[in-house]
């Protein structure tokens, strides 16, 4: 059977050379980095070097990079850490309606605990308005947290401009860059971000490891208390193999950023065009240009996303949807709704996210099969029947 993986925004395979870089740290160089004997020092060195590498790629200094268990922990730590560490200064946080749940649910948690949160609207392309942001700022605002690139529709926010506004108002600025890292050149100083979350499994590294960039001087409570690891800010025996894998993955990603992007954008545009040509009543979600290189998100009217995914799976295509039925929740994707899509259209959304292993031939295969599947499902749909009657 065909095996076409087009859900790279959900997670990526770990590239062979990255797995290989990790292996020695399981069976041989397993020493606890806090130990003073040779094996411990070797581990410490591996972590220090990984940290240096990550820092260099992000334009940060090594002392500003902290390893975590993934994007969710980084987001939780950044937001709760700033909120609880600065509550003497204020209790207001600004974020958006299109954040990942790791940010959204964290903010909702803080709302239940005495904080006030403004969730910025977005336009039909998923873009926030800088004016809205400026208006939302008040004297109690201690943190702005805005997603760099959206995981569902791929829209890229004007992070640099937001960074300037944050700086002008002396407010900490966190960005969830989990989808951006590996796809966009990042320089924390140029962007003016104070905190930045990333997660290795989105750029061909292992799952269960991420990092939080914390600008020097940012006041932030620790989140996982215990041992003195990570300069006393994040306890827990270091996940050396995974940290080495993260650094290796980041290095590979940024060594090949240009060709990665060229390739993905070519495939993406071909895929979008193919879908638009072959299927009627389809709408592209997200921004036409300011979008992640690998992101295709379309709403296909009159059919429902989960049925679409099941059908795609049956021809070996892995994709995702913002349909409520895929998540067991009642409402379709909060991101699509925030962009103004009606529920019934949001139910029929499809995300195909391309990665380094996808080929042009796979894109053709997807277009061809998607068209057939959509036709089959529409033939079963009472909504489509009506449209035909109207014609």
């Amino acid at each position, binding site marked *: 059977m065909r095996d076409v993986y087009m859900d790279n925004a959900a997670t990526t395979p770990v590239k062979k050379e990255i797995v290989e870089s990790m292996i020695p740290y399981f069976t041989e160089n397993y020493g606890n980095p806090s130990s003073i004997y040779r094996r411990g020092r070797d581990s410490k060195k591996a972590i220090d070097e990984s940290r240096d590498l990550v820092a260099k790629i992000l334009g940060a200094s090594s002392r500003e990079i902290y390893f975590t268990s993934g994007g969710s922990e980084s987001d939780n730590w950044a937001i709760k850490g700033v909120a609880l560490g600065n509550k003497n200064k204020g209790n207001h946080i600004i974020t958006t309606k299109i954040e990942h749940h790791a940010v959204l649910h964290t903010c909702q948690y803080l709302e239940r605990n005495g904080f006030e949160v403004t969730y910025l609207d977005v336009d039909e392309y998923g873009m926030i308005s800088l004016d809205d942001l400026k208006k939302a700022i008040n004297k109690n605002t201690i943190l702005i947290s805005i997603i760099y690139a959206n995981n569902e529709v791929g829209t890229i926010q004007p992070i640099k401009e937001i960074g300037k506004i944050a700086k002008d108002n002396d407010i900490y600025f966190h960005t969830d860059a989990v989808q951006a890292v590996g796809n966009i050149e990042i320089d924390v100083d140029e962007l003016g971000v104070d905190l930045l979350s990333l997660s290795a499994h989105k750029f061909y590294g292992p799952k269960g490891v991420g990092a939080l960039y914390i600008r020097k001087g940012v006041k932030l409570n620790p989140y996982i208390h215990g041992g003195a690891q990570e300069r006393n800010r994040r306890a827990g025996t270091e996940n050396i193999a995974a940290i080495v894998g993260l650094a290796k993955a980041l290095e590979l990603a940024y060594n090949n950023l240009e060709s990665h992007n060229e390739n993905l954008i070519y495939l993406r545009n071909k895929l979008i065009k193919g879908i638009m040509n072959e299927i009627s009543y389809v709408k592209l979600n997200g921004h036409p240009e300011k979008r992640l290189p690998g992101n295709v998100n379309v709403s296909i009217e009159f059919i429902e*996303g989960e*049925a679409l995914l099941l059908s795609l799976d049956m021809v070996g295509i892995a994709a995702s949807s913002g349909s409520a039925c895929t998540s067991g929740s009642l409402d379709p994707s909060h991101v699509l709704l925030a962009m103004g899509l009606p529920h019934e259209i949001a139910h029929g959304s499809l995300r195909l996210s391309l990665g380094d292993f996808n080929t042009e031939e796979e894109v053709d295969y997807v277009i061809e099969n998607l068209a057939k599947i959509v036709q089959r499902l529409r033939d079963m749909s009472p909504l489509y029947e009506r449209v035909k009657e109207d014609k």
Partner: protein
Amino acid sequence: MYSEKVMEHFTNPRNVGEIEDADGVGEVGNAKCGDIMKMYLKIENNIIVDVKFKTFGCGSAIASSSMATELIKGKSIEEVLKITNKAVAEALDGLPPVKMHCSVLAEEAIKSALKDYSEKSGVEIEELKDFEPKEDHHH
């Protein structure tokens, strides 16, 4: 996630389509919730001689519709009224808890169609006198 039976009915749904001169038509659910089921019945001498459906919805909604049409085809109205959503789900070898509403939808679609038949034909169906499908059934 889904049983093989569900996948089989989703892949090869039985009785998809419309009946031009249906004796009863029922539609339940709404697009906002992500599922609409429409049932067409052909009834002769109190017996469901033909049934077709159209469904907008997820895999289990389509499979439930398909299974429901199979269960009622050839049955008398009285027999059909005894078929609950559980029977549909069981016939599919079970549905995930979050998907049980799809079988409810199937039951309601049938009842709606029967009620429509009753109203159009004047044949009284005691059990459906007060029947009202709950549009927003799973909200």
